[in-house]
């Protein structure tokens, strides 16, 4: 686990500039929000997620997360069909603060067009650089 300016950026994931991460797991893609994102929102108390079977589209909202003070759309990093939703996060949204990259995953998607969409996401090295710039620019 690498920490950039105090924000966790794990290796092996792809990152979007809308604060999502994905992990490619064979034919499927696991998606969530980054440590950087949860730290901007602070204590998350509500996560509104799609149902299994819903279609999500890259760069478009597929749900919302709400904290004591703020609310933000969840913006999909890839297009596809939702196969599984993390119901644990719906009952315990604080998992998004405690463990955003593992137990705080949000949905598992069967990607529609992964090879075409992947180049618009950031791999680890790029993501480290991007996080650095975000934190310094504030």
């Amino acid at each position, binding site marked *: 686990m690498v920490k950039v300016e105090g924000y966790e950026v794990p290796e092996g994931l792809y990152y979007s500039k809308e604060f999502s991460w994905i992990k490619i797991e064979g034919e499927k893609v696991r998606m969530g929000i980054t440590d950087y994102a949860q730290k901007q929102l602070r204590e998350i108390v509500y996560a509104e997620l799609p149902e299994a079977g819903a279609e999500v589209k890259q760069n478009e909202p597929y749900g919302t997360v709400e904290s004591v003070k703020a609310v*933000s759309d969840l913006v999909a990093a890839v297009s596809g069909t939702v196969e599984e939703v993390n119901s644990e996060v719906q009952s315990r949204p604080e998992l998004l603060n405690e463990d955003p990259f593992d137990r705080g995953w949000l949905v598992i998607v069967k990607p529609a067009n992964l090879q075409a969409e992947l180049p618009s996401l950031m791999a680890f090295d790029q993501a480290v650089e991007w996080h650095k710039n975000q934190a310094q620019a504030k």
Partner: protein
Amino acid sequence: MKAATMAKRIIIIGANAAGVEAASAARKKDRAAEITLVTQEKTAGYSRCGLPFVIGGQIPGFNDLIVYSQAYFQMLKLTLKNETKVTAIDTKEKTVATADKAGNVETLPYDSLVIATGADSFMPPIKGREKQGILSLRGLEDGEKIDQAVKDGAKSAVIMGAGLIGLETGVALIERGLKVTIVEMLPQILPQMLDADMAKMVQEHLQEKGMCILTSKAVEEFLGDDKVTAVMAGGERIEADLFISAFGVRANTKVAVDAGIPLGETRAIKTDARMETGVKDVYAIGDCAESLNIITHKPTCAQLGTIAVRQGKVAGKNAAGDYSLFTGVLASAVTRLFDVEAGVTGLTEAAAARAKIEVVTGAISSKTKADYYPTAKPIKVKLVVEKESQRIIGAQIIGGEEVTQRINALSFAIQKEMTVRELAKADTAYAPPLCETWEPMVLAAEMVLMKLR
């Protein structure tokens, strides 16, 4: 049909404590609204209150004061127009006219408008005030100028005004090695915050730490050719390398006044309990807005960060079509000056007298830990109690530590209209390394009860 489905347009003028809070609250209510913040400053979403502590060196850099990142604005879909001035508001057409740094002008339509234009440093009409080199401490850039002057070798400073900003800046400059003189027109320091007896304790501490404090002395003239090199104060000539005006701040109301939005008796923008101004769908919050004092029920413009965010939340909700009321101000405030903390909530004895409220006071000196515990520090609690109802209406505390949460506790007590008799029976906690057996707030209540007998 089309109009009904259009996203609500909310414009917020100002993008610091009050403005960003309003934007966040509006977004929580309305996920689809177009929310735009317009600010003249380059940097948005930073904490003004932290400026003295960057100058003092406790906080590494001015950028650390940025509370709301660019990512926060992006995640909440808030459009930020910085270095952009609102030149006019048209409350009939419901538009604001803006001009950016490059001179580009725009007319933005709104459904709800929130004015959070803050306050500007006030300079009295003193002879020579047009001369160069008089700094103030209001924004990030002001802070950077003072910091740069110190880096450039300033060895001494004159600070005009012994309010919170003046004293906190004075402490910061002493910590940076400067010789600091404070000039205050009134006979005491912190005149808005503390009674003279309590202020004296703080003044003695500051003087022990090397701050030179001149009270009952007005600044009469700025001396020097083009650049100020000295001031005349109370007939005395004081030279210095750095001059900081901390006379106070005045609500920035020009754009509102030009648009016909009424001011109140404090010369800040008049608001109702929903933080709405005299003009429909226009709200005002923060340092430019007035609201009611909980005790006197009179308009007040206390210009504190906590009031700004509480008003911002209320106005943001209402601007987005929700319902929320602002319940009023006790002007609770705390500060730390070297090793002493000072706090206030509600009315001071002097403010009560001005409001023609008759009071009985009690003041207790105690320790912040058990008296025998080696690191115990002194603490003094003063209670102000209304004579007839025996309700607590104010408190001031000076101590080496643990002041803030006592001020908060007494603020809650006042808001719940607690009587001094109830406070004297309060159930409190105790452990030798943390506090005294008899809580000083309770003992102060006991003293007031004895005087009321």
